[in-house]
C-alpha cells in the first residue's frame, strides 16, 4: 500500500482566510465567535456565530463566475486555489485523470435555496433565477474545483452531516493509498448562516446563547461556524520524487455507525471509530499525543466523547492532550472535519497544540487534559481528529507529523 502525504493546504475560515492567518489565530488562542453580521438577527434567540470575515467575493471571482457560486462554493474554490498553489501541482498536463476531487458538505447551497424560496413564498416573485439549481446542489462546490483546475479523475461529494469532511478526506486517503489515484483534492465546505437555518437549529435546543465552551462545566451548547478547508493528498513516493514540501502524513482512517439515534451520540460508536482508526494506521493508543476532539460544547457530546476516549486509550487517556478548536472557529458542520484537520496539521508542523478556549470551569465528567485557553508548545508525532455526526456516523483520521 502507498503512504499518503499532505502537499497542499488552503483555508477560508472564521480564524482567517489563509493558512498563515489561521496559524496565528490558533497559536494565539484567538476565537472568532461574535455577533452575527451577515443576516438579520431580529427575532432570533441566537445572535452569535463564527462568520468568515473580510471575504470579498468580488476579489476572488469574476462577474461571470459569481452568479454560479453559492457562498459555500466560493469558500471551497478559494481554499482550493491556496492548497493547489502550495502543492505546486498542475493538472492539465496529464495529471488530471490520476487525481480525485472528493469534498464533504452537510447541506450545500442552503443560502441559495433560502434566498430563492424567500423570493417566491414571501416576496411573491413569479420566477426563480435560472441558475438556482446548479448553484444550490450539494456537489456544486466540488464541481467548480474540478472545472477550475482541470481535474478529470473520480469526483464526488460526500454527505454525512457533521462528519462529511472527514468521510471525504478518509475516502480520498484510501484511494491514494490503494493506488487508484495518485493525488486527491479533498476537504469540506459549509455556509449555513440564514435566518431560517438559525431558527431550525434553535428549535433543536442545542445552541449556546453566548459562546462555545467545550468540556467546560458551564458549557451551554454549540455555536455555528462556516468555512472551507481543502487539502491535497499525494502518494508519498511521488511527492518525494518531485521534491514537494510535505506538510504531514495521513496515517489512518476509521469509521463506524451507531445505528441507534438520529441526534444522540453513542459512546460505543465513537470509540469504535477511534479504535478502527488506530487499527487502520497500525498504531497503539500510546502513539497518539493529541486528539482534536469533535467537542461541540453540548452536554451530551462532551461527556460521551470523554468516555469514548477513556474506553479506547485506557491509562494513556490522561496523558494525551485533547482540545476542541470549535471553541474558536465554531461548528462548521460539513466543513468542520476539514477545518479541524487543518488545525491539527498546522499544530503538528508548527510544534504547538491548539487550545480549547473559553474553558473556565472543570467538569468532573470531563476529566481529560483539554489544553485550556492557551496553545501549548509540544512536539507531537501523531494526532487524531474526530468527527461524530447526527445520524450516528463517526469518522476519525490519524495524522503523522
Amino acid at each position, binding site marked *: 500500500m502507498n503512504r499518503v502525504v499532505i502537499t497542499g493546504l488552503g483555508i477560508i475560515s472564521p480564524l482567517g482566510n489563509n493558512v498563515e492567518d489561521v496559524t496565528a489565530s490558533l497559536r494565539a488562542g484567538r476565537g472568532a465567535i461574535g455577533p452575527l453580521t451577515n443576516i438579520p438577527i431580529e427575532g432570533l434567540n441566537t445572535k452569535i456565530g463564527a462568520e468568515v470575515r473580510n471575504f470579498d467575493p468580488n476579489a476572488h471571482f469574476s462577474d461571470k463566475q459569481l452568479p454560479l457560486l453559492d457562498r459555500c462554493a466560493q469558500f471551497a474554490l478559494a481554499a482550493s486555489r491556496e492548497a493547489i498553489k502550495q502543492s505546486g501541482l498542475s493538472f492539465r498536463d496529464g495529471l488530471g485523470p490520476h487525481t480525485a476531487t472528493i469534498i464533504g458538505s452537510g447541506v450545500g447551497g442552503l443560502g441559495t435555496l433560502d434566498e430563492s424560496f424567500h423570493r417566491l413564498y414571501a416576496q411573491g416573485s413569479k420566477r426563480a433565477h435560472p441558475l438556482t439549481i446548479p448553484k444550490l446542489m450539494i456537489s456544486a462546490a466540488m464541481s467548480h474545483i474540478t472545472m477550475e483546475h482541470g481535474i478529470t479523475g473520480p469526483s464526488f461529494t460526500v454527505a454525512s452531516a457533521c462528519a462529511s469532511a472527514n468521510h471525504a478526506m478518509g475516502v480520498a486517503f484510501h484511494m491514494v493509498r490503494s493506488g487508484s489515484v495518485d493525488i486527491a483534492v479533498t476537504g469540506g465546505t459549509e455556509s449555513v448562516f440564514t435566518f431560517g437555518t438559525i431558527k431550525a437549529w434553535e428549535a*433543536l435546543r442545542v445552541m449556546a446563547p453566548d459562546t462555545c465552551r467545550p468540556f467546560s462545566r458551564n458549557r451551554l451548547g454549540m455555536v455555528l461556524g462556516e468555512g472551507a478547508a481543502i487539502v491535497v493528498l499525494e502518494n508519498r513516493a511521488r511527492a518525494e520524487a518531485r521534491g514537494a514540501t510535505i506538510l504531514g502524513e495521513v496515517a489512518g482512517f476509521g469509521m463506524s455507525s451507531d445505528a441507534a*439515534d438520529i441526534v444522540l451520540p453513542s459512546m460505543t460508536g465513537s470509540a469504535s471509530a477511534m479504535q478502527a482508526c488506530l487499527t487502520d494506521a497500525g498504531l497503539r493508543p500510546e502513539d497518539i499525543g493529541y486528539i482534536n476532539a469533535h467537542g461541540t460544547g*453540548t452536554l451530551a457530546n462532551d461527556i460521551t466523547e470523554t468516555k469514548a476516549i477513556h474506553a479506547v486509550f485506557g491509562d494513556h487517556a490522561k496523558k494525551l492532550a485533547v482540545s476542541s478548536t470549535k471553541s474558536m472557529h465554531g461548528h462548521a458542520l460539513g466543513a468542520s472535519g476539514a477545518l479541524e484537520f487543518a488545525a491539527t496539521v498546522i499544530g503538528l508542523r508548527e510544534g504547538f497544540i491548539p487550545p480549547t478556549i473559553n474553558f473556565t470551569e472543570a467538569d468532573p465528567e470531563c476529566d481529560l487534559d483539554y489544553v485550556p485557553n492557551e496553545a501549548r508548545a509540544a512536539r507531537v508525532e501523531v494526532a487524531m481528529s474526530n468527527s461524530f455526526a447526527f445520524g450516528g456516523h463517526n469518522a476519525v483520521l490519524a495524522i503523522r507529523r
Partner: protein
Amino acid sequence: MANMENDIIEIVAKQAKVDGATLKADTRLSELDLQSIDIIELIFAIEDKFDIEVPYSPNDLNSAGISFETIGDLVGAVERLTAEQHAQKSV
C-alpha cells in the same frame, strides 16, 4: 386553568403515545417513554399551541428556573410564561 391542563395533557399524551386519561398533574415526565428529542418536540408543540417561548435547554436545565419534572410543573410554567409574555405583547 383546567383547559390549559387538558390541552397540555393532550399534547403530552400524543407525544408519549399514551391515553390522556392515564395522565394526571403529578405524572412525572420521566415515567413516560420520552426520549430527549421527544421532549424537544413536546416543548415545540406547547410553544406553538400557546404562542409562547419556553426557555428550555437540555444543556442548562436550571437556567430558566422552570422544573420539567411533572405535568403539573409544565402547566404551572406555561401559565406563568403565558401571563408574562402575553402581557409584554399587549404593552
